[in-house]
């Protein structure tokens, strides 16, 4: 009997990727979940079970911040879903129109904000909306609406929505591109068959194209969800780690950063930080599961 010889090249090919991925991504992920169950008392790490989570959810000081950050994060996500994705779909629908001239030019120009870093975007908008510089008020003055101007980033009631809209401005290119690709892949015959039945123009979009691109809209929604629930950079760059004014723009990412690293007088606490990170992990996991099992499997995929 001849034993199958071990094909050594398979582990050799797999090893580097699996090692780096396991060591830097998977292991720290689970280690963070584990660290959330510990606490530091007198320079010693002791096991405290679910105490950190109890503090996070029920201790008045912590829970107020946590629920505030979570609520803000949901609002941040809702603004993206309601503004970014419809604009992205609309732009893609126009761009995919056959015989539209300069489509490539528009596409590249509209994608430019997406390639800029949050630091640039955050500061650029901070300057533009600043009452000191006066670009925003003078532009509103130009259309006769100067009375509408408020220092949006400085007011508690507007700051979060303003930042969400800035983020929408930055990322609208991504849904636009993905939907554009999906629209281009719809075969011409289907549209022509619709035309024969008298479905053209706008109604062709609603009745034929939109149902066909629903899977892409699903992907965009889950990408937006994951992106929003680990967002940090834009808020940090424009409002600082304190997510001012008065924590009104605090989201889970900035809350995690402050807790983990400390700020001003509060010392950093890696264990409470781990607890918040575990919470973020749970939220993202729930979102991904809802998408994978609830939406994706039920969505009808049309054979094209």
């Amino acid at each position: 009997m001849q034993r199958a010889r071990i094909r050594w090249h398979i582990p050799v090919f797999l090893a580097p990727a699996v090692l780096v991925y396991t060591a830097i991504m998977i292991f720290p992920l689970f280690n963070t979940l584990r660290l959330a169950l510990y606490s530091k008392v007198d320079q010693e790490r002791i096991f405290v079970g679910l105490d950190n989570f109890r503090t996070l959810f029920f201790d008045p000081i912590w829970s107020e911040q946590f629920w505030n950050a979570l609520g803000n994060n949901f609002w941040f996500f809702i603004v993206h879903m309601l503004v970014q994705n419809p604009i992205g779909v609309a732009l893609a629908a126009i761009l995919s129109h056959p015989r539209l001239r300069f489509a490539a030019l528009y596409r590249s120009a509209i994608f430019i904000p997406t390639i800029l870093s949050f630091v640039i975007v955050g500061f650029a908008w901070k300057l533009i909306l600043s009452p000191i510089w006066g670009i925003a008020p003078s532009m509103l003055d130009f259309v006769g609406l100067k009375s509408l101007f408020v220092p949006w980033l400085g007011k508690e009631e507007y700051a979060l929505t303003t930042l969400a809209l800035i983020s929408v401005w930055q990322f609208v290119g991504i849904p636009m591109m993905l939907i554009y690709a999906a629209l281009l892949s719809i075969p011409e015959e289907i549209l022509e068959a619709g035309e024969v039945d008298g479905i053209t123009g706008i109604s062709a979009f609603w009745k034929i194209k939109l149902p066909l691109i629903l899977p892409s809209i699903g992907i965009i929604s889950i990408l937006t969800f994951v992106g929003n629930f680990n967002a940090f950079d834009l808020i940090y760059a424009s409002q600082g780690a304190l997510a001012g004014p008065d924590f009104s723009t605090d989201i889970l990412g900035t809350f995690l950063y402050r807790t983990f690293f400390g700020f001003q007088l509060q010392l950093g606490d890696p264990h409470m930080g781990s607890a918040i990170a575990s919470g973020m992990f749970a939220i993202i996991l729930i979102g991904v599961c809802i998408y994978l099992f609830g939406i994706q499997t039920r969505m009808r995929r049309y054979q094209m």
Partner: protein
Amino acid sequence: MNKARKNPFNTLAMHGALILYTLIALFPVFVILINSFKDRKAIFREPLALPDAETFSMIGYQTVMKQGDFFLYFQNSLIVTVASLFFVLLFGAMAAFALAEYRFKGNTLMGLYLALGIMIPIRIGTVAILEMMVAGGLVNTLWALILVYTAQGLPLAVFILSEFMRQVSDDLKNAARVDGLSEYAIFFRLVLPLVRPAMATVAVFNMIPIWNDLWFPLILAPAEETKTLTLGSQVFIGQFVTDWNAVLSALSMAILPVLILYVIFSRQLIRGITSGAVK
């Protein structure tokens, strides 16, 4: 052909909408760039005017050059991005080849394991990553960032590249085997050159998030000599908040390299996205 598609009014409305949105997209970038070349008075008096002979000034750029080590930051960003992309592509392609080419026990499971990271952001593990980097003495080195970005980029790279490698013809590989080429030679000399377009797509996808990341440079490598351009400009702008010339110039200096790269690679990037690589 139907009439709706040729209606001149519709065409006009479509161009109107696109031009309006293009203006919204480009306006902030434009305002920052033109004002960085003006003197302080002109910035405030006529923020929307182009710089002319009278108002032209490079004072902001001079401050930036004197105060911040932007060349060092730029160099750090470049090293981190290029090295991370190199490892993502090399390791990713090797793993993708193993998954696409060979049938072995646990193949599907391994594929799923590697795909987990596509949806779960690596940031969740930050606390433990920092602890590990402290233990390994890698804090404030560029290696810490390179390792993290390599791990972050691998899942999507393996996923996309293995899709493409399945399309490489078996006859070609078997012919090479008959000629006595080793599996390694088949991978490096035959398959890699064939999937070059897919590698470019993966590279462009990974480039932007790595270059623009603020979180990990802030946490793993905040020292002066390891600052990346994104972190460097963040810190610099934070210190010079009231010096508008310096802030605008620093922003422009952060925008320009990305914009130049985009002009070079935009076709590749857009083709990558629209070819459905992320389906």
